[in-house]
């Protein structure tokens, strides 16, 4: 209930598209009953969670922040949603995103942009200099990053304890970094995509957003494992793990890929990255510079493969079986065309056009096949580095801290995506697990995170290192008035409101 009222008071963040108040309260009630009987379904029983609006939720609207699916009520739950519900989790609602997860700002959905909760934090307000008196106090707010901005904002503002996002080119890690939360991208094939409305089938993964690394491990434990409904999940049995406290890092080898010193990387973040490397070195770990030489090709490669898959995946939206259908009825073709023009925004339509271009017979070899080959090279870069004894890679997650919305929208979606994805994309190309850990506040009082990239299916090692790092940096808690008002002292006592500790 606290979460629900907090959601209401933070409505201006626009993090939620749908709030499932009634069902959530019912779920919470049933959870209480189970606890009273001493029979909780699992560790997540009663925990309020939010789900990005590109996951199918039975009976609750799923829109993908698009006119095409406004009002669409799916008849089935995505596997990950079902798993959470089976554990007794309370589904608070569906969070906002860029339309069909295309974007890096969570600004291009039909329900409007998501505001970064840190825009309203004491930390940010203290540091921000008002430009003029006449300026609206409100216009200075910063973006969440994207495309899972709604989920990141929801977790960051304490309206829920964990949220599901999706990650195709960085869509979970990027907003996690900007909102100061943990964002985990699992290995491709570990968690089922059944029910996740796809952007790029060969790169998409469900992402996990939480306030601390331990929580991420818990959620991962409930979600990972083979799903017969998703033929791309691995068959191996997954064993959920608890994270031990790492005391000795001397056996660790941390790689610092030099290509991640990308153009546009802020000096602040560069310094932070350096400090983090030193942190490991001083603790006894081996820290070495490595090279991932094909990194600079990843943007164009991603662009070709992503748009091609998008063109294909969006072909099903014709208004015939579900979703928006135009009133145009002169012919089937004209109905299709009008439906798609009305249902999709410019970003989606632009990617469809590009993708179809690359898939044309005369272009396929030069674009699609070439991009596949480059993708293989990028993936091999990682194989080589991990094969040479490096355990984990340490990189920045974003080029800078969150920028104001007014500045962000000066460039178009494609430009922004190309810029912002550079540090996160390659992990999707290679299918590797990666995590953003909030590290420190920038000079402007906004969160900055750093990224760890691990070996395929070695989430346990990745999260163990991430947890150690998290402990070292002691990232501050957001100071939001709204949160304080709803808090009855519980939050203040906790540095990281882990729900494991929160259970009373």
């Amino acid at each position: 209930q606290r979460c629900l009222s907090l959601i209401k008071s933070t409505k201006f963040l626009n993090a939620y598209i749908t709030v499932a108040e009634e069902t959530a309260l019912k779920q919470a009630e049933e959870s209480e009953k189970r606890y009273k009987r001493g029979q909780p379904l699992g560790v997540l029983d009663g925990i309020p969670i939010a789900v990005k609006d590109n996951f199918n939720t039975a009976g609750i609207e799923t829109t993908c922040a698009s006119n095409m699916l406004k009002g669409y009520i799916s008849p089935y739950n995505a596997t990950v949603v079902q798993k959470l519900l089976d554990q007794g989790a309370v589904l608070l609602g569906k969070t906002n995103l860029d339309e069909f997860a295309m974007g890096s700002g969570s600004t291009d959905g039909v329900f409007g942009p998501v505001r970064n909760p840190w825009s309203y934090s004491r930390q940010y307000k203290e540091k921000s200099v008002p430009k003029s008196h006449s300026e609206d106090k409100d216009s200075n707010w910063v973006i969440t990053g994207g495309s899972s901005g709604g989920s990141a904002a929801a977790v960051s503002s304490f309206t829920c304890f964990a949220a599901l996002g999706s990650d195709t080119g960085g869509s979970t890690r990027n907003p996690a970094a900007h909102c100061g939360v943990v964002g985990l991208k699992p290995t491709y094939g570990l968690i089922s995509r059944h029910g996740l409305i796809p952007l790029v089938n060969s790169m998409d993964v469900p992402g996990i957003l939480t306030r601390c690394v331990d929580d991420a491990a818990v959620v991962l434990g409930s979600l990972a494992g083979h799903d017969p409904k998703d033929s791309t999940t691995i068959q191996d049995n997954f064993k959920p793990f608890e994270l031990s406290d790492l005391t000795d890092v001397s056996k660790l080898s941390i790689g610092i890929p030099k290509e991640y010193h990308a153009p546009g990387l802020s000096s602040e973040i560069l310094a932070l990255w350096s400090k983090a490397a030193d942190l490991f070195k001083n603790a006894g770990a081996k820290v070495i510079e490595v090279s991932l030489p094909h990194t600079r090709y990843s943007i164009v490669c991603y662009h070709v493969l992503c748009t091609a898959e998008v063109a294909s995946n969006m072909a099903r939206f014709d208004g015939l079986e579900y979703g928006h259908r135009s009133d145009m009825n002169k012919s089937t073709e004209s109905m299709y065309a009008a439906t798609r023009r009305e249902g999709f925004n410019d970003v989606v339509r632009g990617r469809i056009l590009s993708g179809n271009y690359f898939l044309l017979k005369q272009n396929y070899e030069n674009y699609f096949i070439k991009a596949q080959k480059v993708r293989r090279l990028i993936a091999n870069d990682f194989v080589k580095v991990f094969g040479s004894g490096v355990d984990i890679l340490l990189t920045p997650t974003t080029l800078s801290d969150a920028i104001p919305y007014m500045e962000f929208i000066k460039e178009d979606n494609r430009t922004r995506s190309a810029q912002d994805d550079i540090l996160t994309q390659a992990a999707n190309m290679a299918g590797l697990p990666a995590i953003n850990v909030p590290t420190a506040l920038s000079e402007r009082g906004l969160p900055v995170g750093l990224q760890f990239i691990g070996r395929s299916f070695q989430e346990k090692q990745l999260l163990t290192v991430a947890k150690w790092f998290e402990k070292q940096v002691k990232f501050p808690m957001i100071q939001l008035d709204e949160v304080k008002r709803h808090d009855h002292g519980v939050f203040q006592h906790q540095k990281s409101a882990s729900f494991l500790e929160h259970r009373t």
Partner: protein
Amino acid sequence: LCLWGHPYLNSIFLLFFFFFSLTPWVPVVGLEIHAQISSNSKLFSGSQVQFAAPPNSLVSFFDASLPGTLPVLNRRCVEAAVMTGLALNCSINKKSLFDRKHYFYADLPAGYQITQQRVPIAVNGSLSYSLCIDNKMSQMVTKTVRIKQIQLEQDSGKSLHDDVRSQTLVDLNRAGVGLMEVVMEPDMCCGEEAAAAVRELQLILQTLGSSQAVMAEGQLRVDANVSVHHPGEPYGVRTEVKNINSIRFLAKAVDYEIERQIEELESGGTILNETRAFDSKLGCTVPMRDKEGKQDYRFMPEPNLPPLILYNARSLPANMNHQQVVNIDWIHERLPDLPSVKRAKLVEQYGILPEHSFTLLNEAGLTEFFEDVIKQTQMKPKKVIGWILNDLLSYLKQHSLTVKESPVSSFLLADLLNRLEKKEISSTAAKQVFAELWKGEGKTPLEIVKEKKLQLIQDQEDLERICQAVIDGQENEVIICQCRKDGVLALPHLLGRTRSSLPGSLV
């Protein structure tokens, strides 16, 4: 041009062309055959496969292309394709891939079809089929057509265009049903060859059980690729002929198209690389409504399906769960006898002619009927076959009945043939009994023989008396009789006389 449906005129014109042709034409015919896989559920989803169910009652979320749904490969469909590939002497690809073929149409909910364009499941096979040289089925020749490949793919739904209300009705029951596309190289030269090849394929599929292959129910669909060229010159432009609903129409459509192309080229025209539909009422092909010029299907690998890996006994990993794998060798060991093998066995075992074996296999249930009769009679198979093919089958055809629906059971026929063998009745009488049995009134052959007094007279004295009566009835004619132990052989006209003096029985 459409007059050519008329067989008589057809051959006149054909003769005309061949006589007046400047140089001979070589027709070239290839086929693309889609066979619906006989399975409980669809290729990539669990919804049921059933003919003529209420519209949209067999549609899963995946079939309706609901966003977020993913394909899951049906093992039975893979096995059906492997069986078919083995029966057609193909190499089975141990690794094959799935692709998306994109186009927009109301009966294709996802906007793409999942198929196997890059690497199909089976390649490089062959199919042998037989043709009769003349219409009498007395001389058969064996031909072979190369099988280019067999690929697994999804069937589309059905759309019905209601022009009255300017709407299209879409039924997705069929959307996602598994298909095997069998591609036959252009090794055929005319409608008859195409028809024979398809008929043999149909028999093979039905024997394997991989498809019921009934054309009338849409389980077997054939598109023909037809072109003509002068010998020594490169192949001509080909047209694709669709909308062929039976094997008979296939032969007609192909022959019509060959003639149309020849006439077009001889009068100085050109052949367009187009798709034409066969109009069965008019007996000709017509251009199909031009969709959008040449389609670019923008093929792309299907990212949600890993490569399909098949194993054989050698490559099968030791600890692999056998539920999870398809073993080519295991399937090979369990293949049933193919039609060609069955026919050879019938010829060897029963001493019947090859043409007979074709007819036996061509009619559902006829072989079993034949073998049942053989089991129950002393009559030699070589004689039984005559009864099966000339009598039983012609009666069935006359009344448009299947073997299953025959009013004469194998038991009854065997009984009848036994009496004939034992010379209880003559062969003429036996035909009469058969006609009576056909009425299906429940009478046994013995009852009918008694009723119609058809029994052969065995008694020597009786016979002599009758013969004497006939002889006496003749005036001033020399009669020669030959008496034998088992009956009387008399001159034909006398025989006729004698015959007519006895109700139905043969002397």
